[in-house]
């Protein structure tokens, strides 16, 4: 069930009404309803993987209790590593088995040995990377004595499987979400209206921006050998907007949906394309994953403490692991490594926290220096996205090679005017709303009701016009 599907448009109001009208008596009833709705939602993808989700949930719940109750450190360790091992085992099997087998065989071929590989036609369970990370953070936090285990299984199961975040995040933390699930939610008019507004903006990002850019980005990437360098630049830029619209749009819908149920999720995007350097970009892009890796990998490795060499090593590790998390393909690993290379100078010279506030805060326009910084950072991310989008590493290299040719100075063969107009309007709206949680939020504070309603009507009208056949979200594959 996609967020941009008709079935979700029926499902969400039904669950919303049941939630506030029938299960309003206690938080336990509310959680039971959310759990049932979440399992129904997930079952709509593939009912076979409901068992896997239930098993993973029970494993982490039970391990959490055992770790907390263990009388000896060794028992703690056994339960901890059992949980981590099984979680990562599932993730490894479903997501990386074929990659490792193929890479191993390819490695042997280079030494003149040939083996028959035994690859499997493994179907990747939707959202496995996300709910596995939920569970892992929970178990790690208990092991490190940061939190107490949740004793109520239903409450814990809702934490793992809450349907707005189940398939593509944001990756929640027990410390943030569980306390909200342990109290009765009361209906809040402002919060619900804000939720709807954020859903609308998320749908606009997905349907108007991402799906429209995707048509041309796919065309250009799939036939990159036939296009000029300038067209390939257009393709890469359109992909940059496609992936931003797609993923941040999904996150906006998830956050807005959760707000309808009185629950606040972690913000996942903060206008990343307005970043002035790569460090700032990574504080604004897929924030829940970046902070997960920071807290559970970077800091345990030593973080930014210690020698320069240690900081370089840790940075390289988290970016390469982050790339690998996205998928079993060398393109993702190189994408991660490239981002590590981008960020290393600021880590070495300790300038990575130079830009903490949003660009041109309190001003209408950025300075020339800020504009140059933003454009340069955007250019670097676009270059990295080429690896992310390409079919293979060689495809990415050929793509970049063609961009570096003389044909980059020619007029692009693909230059859809409607897309450019839409993108300019989108960038302007994002710029105006950059100090808020999402661009459309600004209208709630600054515009009278008739202006707001007119804007919403226009946006809904555009959604109808841009909507074609339902397109899946890119991050569902991760």
């Amino acid at each position, binding site marked *: 069930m996609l967020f941009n599907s*008709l079935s979700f448009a029926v499902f969400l109001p039904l669950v919303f009404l049941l939630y*506030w009208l029938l299960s309003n008596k206690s938080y336990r009833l509310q959680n039971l309803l959310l759990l049932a709705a979440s399992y129904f939602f997930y079952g709509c993808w593939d009912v076979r993987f409901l068992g896997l989700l239930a098993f993973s949930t029970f494993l982490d719940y039970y391990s959490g209790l055992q770790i907390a109750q263990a009388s000896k450190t060794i028992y703690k360790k056994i339960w901890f590593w059992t949980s981590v091992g099984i979680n990562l085992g599932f993730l490894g099997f479903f997501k990386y088995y074929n990659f490792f087998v193929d890479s191993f065989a390819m490695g042997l071929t280079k030494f003149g040995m040939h083996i028959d590989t035994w690859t499997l036609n493994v179907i990747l369970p939707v959202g496995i990377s996300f709910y596995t990370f939920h569970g892992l953070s929970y178990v790690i936090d208990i092991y490190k004595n940061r939190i107490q285990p949740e004793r109520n299984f239903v409450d814990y199961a809702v934490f793992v499987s809450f349907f707005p975040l189940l398939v593509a995040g944001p990756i929640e933390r027990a410390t943030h979400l569980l306390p909200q699930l342990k109290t009765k939610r009361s*209906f809040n*008019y402002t919060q*619900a*209206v804000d939720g*709807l507004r954020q859903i609308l903006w998320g749908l606009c990002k997905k349907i108007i921006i991402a799906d429209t850019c995707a048509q041309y980005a796919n065309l250009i990437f799939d036939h990159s050998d036939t296009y000029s360098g300038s067209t390939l630049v257009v393709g890469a830029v359109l992909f940059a907007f496609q992936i931003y619209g797609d993923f941040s749009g999904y996150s906006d819908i998830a956050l807005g949906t959760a707000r309808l149920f009185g629950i606040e999720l972690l913000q996942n995007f903060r206008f990343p394309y307005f970043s002035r350097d790569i460090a700032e970009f990574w504080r604004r892009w897929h924030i829940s994953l970046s902070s997960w890796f920071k807290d559970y990998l970077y800091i345990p490795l030593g973080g930014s403490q210690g020698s320069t060499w240690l900081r370089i090593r840790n940075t390289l590790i988290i970016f390469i692991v982050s790339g690998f998390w996205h998928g079993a393909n060398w393109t993702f690993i190189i994408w991660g490594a490239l981002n590590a290379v981008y960020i290393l100078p600021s880590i070495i010279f300790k300038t990575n926290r130079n830009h903490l506030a949003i660009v041109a805060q309190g001003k209408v326009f950025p300075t020339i220096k800020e504009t140059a910084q933003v454009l340069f950072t955007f250019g670097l991310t676009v270059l990295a996205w080429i690896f992310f989008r390409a079919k293979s590493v060689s495809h990415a290299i050929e793509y970049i090679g063609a961009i570096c040719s003389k044909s980059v100075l020619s007029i692009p063969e693909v230059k859809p005017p*409607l897309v450019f107009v839409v993108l300019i309007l989108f960038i302007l709206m994002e710029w105006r709303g950059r100090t808020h949680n999402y661009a459309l939020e600004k209208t709630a504070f600054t515009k009278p009701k008739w202006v707001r*309603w007119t804007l*919403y*009507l226009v946006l*809904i*009208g555009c959604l*109808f*016009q*841009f909507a*074609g*056949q339902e397109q899946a979200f890119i991050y569902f594959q991760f």
Partner: protein
Amino acid sequence: MKKFLLQLLCFGVLFLAIDRTLIVLRNYVPRLEVDQRLEQLLQKKLKADVFVFGSSRGARDVIASQLGDSLQQKVYNLSYPGGDIEFQYFVLQQLLKYQKPKAILLVMDENTEVGTSENVRYRLDRLYPLVKYPAVREELIRKEEKNKYVSELFILHQLNKSNFDLRHRKPSPLDTPLSCGSMPITTQMPGFTKKFNTAIPDYDAQKEFASKRYYFNQFLNACEKANTKVVLVFPPNFYAPSPAFYARMQQLANHRAYLMRYNSAYAHYLNSDLFTDKHHLRQSGAQLFTSELAGFIREQQLLLPPKFNP
């Protein structure tokens, strides 16, 4: 909660009210179109004894008015440049809803008829200006362009971005039909290589699209059911004909159609002046081929009502 639901209801009512006003736009957009043939068909106004179907080869290579004069029958051309067999089948369905023509001439294209060339497609752009007609809306739903329930609920969902472009379409020599529906061309395409290629083209049935084959079969079945005779027409290209393609279409037609192939011994077709490009005849060439086609129809006595025996 009450306030929230009330506001939502008000917004919904306002949205629906505005949406209803779009009926005016939906009814207005067909007037902007140059090619009115499909609308006339949907209004059941087109009546003829013989209809020509096909893509651009049907539109350019057969001049319906000349054929009609020659046969003393009313002939109309319903070919759409770039239209695939699925689209042609949709047009046929609309035609058969209100009349049973004596014959249908289906003009063949060896690259696109059931083959893999993507030069033809389903002409959605011809349908969107006509969404005020239920048959068009049903077709868009069948094509999964639109959702049935949402389409019934919102006019906005029935429309397309192009419907909001209220400029009158400019008549183009490539896409403007004569009163008989044909679209002959008098000029030659730039870059047309005027050297006749004598190499006999290959035809690989393995590369056919199953969906195109399906609609080709449906087309013939619908005509058979309506007792309408079908002629598969093979006009000349500016290169050697493909006997393999002819044999393949004969096999697919499976005795449900007559086959009319241009006379390749006729040396005129080696003259590049008769062609607009290597796949399409120029007006002078189309006149020549239309005469040949008229001769075939007379010879086979297709428009008389004897026994059907292809």
